[in-house]
């Protein structure tokens, strides 16, 4: 892999990965965990516990609500204080289970361990992935078990593990690849077994040479291929990653499965390995707490339900007041206004930005400079689209493929007029989805 295909557009970012060399530290027990029942895309989990119930670490709190859903497990042992709702990172109220820790952290009976997973049947393994509540841990949090059940008319021949971590500042996956290399490789092989796939590729961006080297060394003789990719944002976006690694273009509106690929995050792969080999459901993850205002940025192994404030306190609090607090990375993360939000399965980072690092959106008109055109990895025309959307011509925007936008943020990043392009795209997508749902509801009637 020396000559790689380059996807169109993209931007070179200041990486700001100041926590690459910070080993993962485990967060101490919290007195209170607020575990949202919806930490994934799809239907929320249905609570199976009641107020006052005693729960153990790893015990089921909520079962999958529908096919596209994932169960939620208790992060520690204690008592269910209440079933209520809490603020999620996207600003919506999420149903949640509040658990008062008893300080014992007693583990529940683990799920039955597959001592020899090479022998286990793919269906059993897939059921385990579903049971353990594993979701895509790169941010979107799509239930992994659903991903592992491709539609019957496609065959998947390549599994790509995404260790690109192209978002600046975040290093959670990087540290995981360094410290839990073997777990990831095992996870990759389990996925391959579930899908009956031979070709397994782990993709890592070249700015993590240590992880690349470590992974290559450990992958020897396991049939797993490790590739180093050019540093260009958004290299880790699913469609761009598949294109770079295999040269296949995922058609508009289709899933990677249609070109025979499955992409999953390295953290999810590690979680799968843990679920299969240790019987451990997904109730903790590595979160990078970083940003210039943070006193001691670091990578922290947090239980799901830990409030952001505790994670930040563990990093020594702040040196200066931030202007923005972001859940996720600087390019695709969501800005939040509260530190009471709990860490969930998809929280890859908590980023604080100081006042001088933030530029404000302005109501300027588009200059037609075309920079967004050159930067958009989906080869769209963000400037024109945004003007269209500004005047509420949503159906026109949809005809111009606004639904293909991956919200990577390259266009807003380069726009000299400071237009909130991505927000416009998201608005148009929200409107299009709502229209579609309304049409579906109407046709059912």
């Amino acid at each position, binding site marked *: 892999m020396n000559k790689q295909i380059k*996807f*169109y557009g993209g*931007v070179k*970012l200041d990486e700001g990965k100041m926590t690459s060399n910070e080993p993962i530290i485990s967060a101490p027990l919290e007195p209170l965990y607020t575990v949202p029942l919806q930490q994934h895309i799809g239907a929320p989990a249905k609570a199976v516990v009641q107020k006052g119930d005693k729960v153990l670490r790893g015990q089921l709190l909520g079962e999958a609500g529908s096919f596209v859903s994932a169960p939620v497990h208790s992060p520690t042992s204690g008592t269910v204080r209440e079933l209520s709702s809490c603020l999620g990172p996207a600003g919506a109220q999420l149903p949640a289970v509040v658990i008062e820790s008893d300080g014992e952290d007693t583990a529940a009976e683990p799920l039955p361990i597959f001592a020899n997973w090479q022998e286990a049947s793919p269906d059993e393994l897939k059921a385990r992935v579903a049971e353990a509540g594993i979701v895509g841990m790169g941010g979107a949090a799509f239930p992994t078990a659903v991903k592992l059940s491709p539609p019957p008319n496609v065959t998947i021949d390549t599994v790509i593990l995404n260790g690109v971590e192209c978002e*600046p500042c975040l290093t959670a996956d990087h540290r995981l690849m360094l410290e839990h290399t073997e777990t990831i490789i095992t996870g990759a092989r389990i996925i391959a077994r579930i899908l009956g796939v031979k070709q397994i590729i782990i993709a890592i961006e070249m700015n993590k040479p240590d992880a690349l080297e470590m992974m290559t060394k450990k992958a020897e003789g396991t049939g797993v291929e490790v590739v180093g990719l050019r540093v260009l944002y958004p290299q880790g976006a699913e*469609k761009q990653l598949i294109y770079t690694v295999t040269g296949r*273009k995922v*058609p*508009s509106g289709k899933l990677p499965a249609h070109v025979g690929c499955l992409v999953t995050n390295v953290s999810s792969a590690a979680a799968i390995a843990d679920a299969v080999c240790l019987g451990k459901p997904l109730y903790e993850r590595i979160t990078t707490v970083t940003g210039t205002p943070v*006193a001691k940025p670091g990578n922290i192994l947090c239980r799901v339900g830990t409030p952001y*404030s505790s994670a930040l*306190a563990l990093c*020594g*609090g*702040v*040196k200066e*007041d*931030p*202007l*923005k*607090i*972001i859940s*996720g990375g*600087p*390019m*695709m*993360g969501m*800005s939040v*206004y*509260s*530190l009471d939000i709990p860490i969930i399965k998809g929280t890859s980072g908590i*980023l*604080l*930005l100081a006042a001088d*690092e933030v*530029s404000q*959106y302005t109501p*300027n*008109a*588009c*200059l*037609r*400079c*075309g920079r967004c*055109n050159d930067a958009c*990895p*989906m*080869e*769209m025309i963000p400037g024109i689209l945004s003007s269209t959307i500004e005047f509420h011509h949503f159906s026109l925007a949809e005809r111009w*493929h606004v639904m*293909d936008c991956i*919200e990577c*943020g390259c266009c*807003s*990043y*380069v726009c*000299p*007029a400071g237009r909130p392009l991505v*927000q416009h795209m*998201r608005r148009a997508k929200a409107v299009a989805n709502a229209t579609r749902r309304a049409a579906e509801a109407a046709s059912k009637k």
Partner: protein
Amino acid sequence: MSEQTTIRMPDTSKLVVSSSPHYHDMGSIPKIMFTVLAALAPAVFASIYFFGWRALLVLSVCMVSCAAIEALLCRLMRRRISIGDGSALVTGLLLGMTLPVTSPLWMCIVGSFIAIGLGKMVYGGLGGNPFNPASVGRVALLLACPSAMTTWVTVSGCALNKWVVDATTGATPLELVAQNQPGPGFWSLFLGNIGGSIGETCTLALIVGGVFLIALKIIRWQIPVFFIGTVFLITGIAYMVSPCPKFNPMTHVLSGGLMLGAFFMATDMVTSPLNRKGAVVFAIGCGIITTIIRLWGSYPEGISYAILIMNALTPLIDRYTAGRPFGVARKASQKNA
């Protein structure tokens, strides 16, 4: 003190929330506009050097009146006063550079009014204008006061000690070649030791500024390269067919407004196509129209017209050069276009 009390937690009451992305390359419209102004500085110096200090007066009057008119119109239209973005200054400077050094000052002000008022503000300000405002101003003046706009002084070397060079009227190289007389030699053309509008003569200074802008990725290299290349190619072919001074490609490329137009006016972001493919089409179109006007039209110069005509075609070019989004099949995209 215990560990607990020393931890400072952020004050969440003054946070800002906004849509992703939270990073920005920190570029802005004023940054672009002031860089363009900086890129024009060498040409301004060259013009003072060859034409005398009145050149500076003309340029300043144009810039100041453009800014003032924009402020006034914003005020009348009850909009945010937008002169801070610097685009009015760029328009004023470019307009001034296309005027002869002897232009009366009232003409500068009228030109600025047309450029800013009719060229930009009536379309809603920066970003909405279909035509390059400076070209609009220049063309309007050319039509309204043809004699004042084509009175050229003779240039002979350094004029830094003069208010304005001696007002003996001369002809521009393009006027000479239009009458089929040999134009000045290469070095005069290249350095700008020739008659013409204030900012158009010194090719060297303009190229320096243009390359600076290309290096900073403020303008697309495709536009100047293909624009100038097309002019060179067509005149070159004509010259090979009939080698008379009228078709001399060197004079055509190095004189008149080509350098200024190709590097600074055709590349105006607002009025040129969005993507690279479109830019090439646009530039070739400009080149063809310019040469046609110069060689076979009744004007010796045609840059402004060429740019305006291609400006008008820009939406069309954009529409036909827009690429297909990643993963969209060719058929589907055509059906929807």
